[in-house]
């Protein structure tokens, strides 16, 4: 069960709030200090991605963030937009599989893309590069995607 849930309107200003809350919850859950910077960046990227998707689709719906500490510290960031990119990576599988990314042909060099496209692609690259356990998938119910990430815990939380 999530220990902390956060929902925010898709405004860029709220992404920082989500980062701050995420790092505070991760620290309290027992994520190692040296991983907190990665947690901060990854939560920021996942939330930025959700905000960008909502804004590009003209959606006012809230972005949902749920954080839970069980065996690992798990963060789920849920958007309500169609056509988000799919990414899958597990700790057992070193390869990152970009399953679909309709907006961004991967063969285009970054310096030839528009800024927004660079940001979107680099956001996914950062998520995939930072998070060992990452899964971006379509929601099982309704329209949207879920970015699910987890990190190991150093100690059991209280």
């Amino acid at each position: 069960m999530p220990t902390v849930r956060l929902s925010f309107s898709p405004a860029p200003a709220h992404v920082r709030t989500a980062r701050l809350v995420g790092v505070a919850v991760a620290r309290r859950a027992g994520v190692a200090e040296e991983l907190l910077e990665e947690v901060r960046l990854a939560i920021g990227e996942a939330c930025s991605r959700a905000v960008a998707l909502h804004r590009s689709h003209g959606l006012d719906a809230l972005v949902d963030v749920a954080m839970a500490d069980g065996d690992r510290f798990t963060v789920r960031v849920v958007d309500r937009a169609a056509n988000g990119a799919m990414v899958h990576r597990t700790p057992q599988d070193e390869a990152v599989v970009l399953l679909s990314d309709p907006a961004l042909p991967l063969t285009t060099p970054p310096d030839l893309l528009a800024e927004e496209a660079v940001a979107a692609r680099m956001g996914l690259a950062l998520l995939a590069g930072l998070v060992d356990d990452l899964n971006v998938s379509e929601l099982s119910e309704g329209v949207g995607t879920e970015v699910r990430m987890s990190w190991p815990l150093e100690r059991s939380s209280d």
Partner: protein
Amino acid sequence: MELSLSAYDSGDHKVLEVGGEVDVYTAPRLREKLVELVEQGARHVVVDLSRVEFLDSTGLGVLVGALKRLRAVNGSFGLVCAHERLLKIFRITALDRVFQLYDTVDAAIAASGAGTDSPA
């Protein structure tokens, strides 16, 4: 921490010192500043990221945009970035192969000054 931007001249280079957090909220201000510098005639721009505490993909997008703008006017664009925390972001995204990254402002100016801008 809020974004801070401060530009100064060093020879024919414009140096933009950036501090604080560059993210989806603050990156538009960085973009505006870089566009303004180029529109005002800057052709050799060095962005000093030494005091940046946080940089995300939106900030990377803005920096790529500035690189393209300066290439289009035969200018140069260098980044000063010595912190491992930020260098890792450039490596993960493979943008360390797109940008010229330097440890110091002096090194960035020396590198671009020695190259393309000497009159034929």
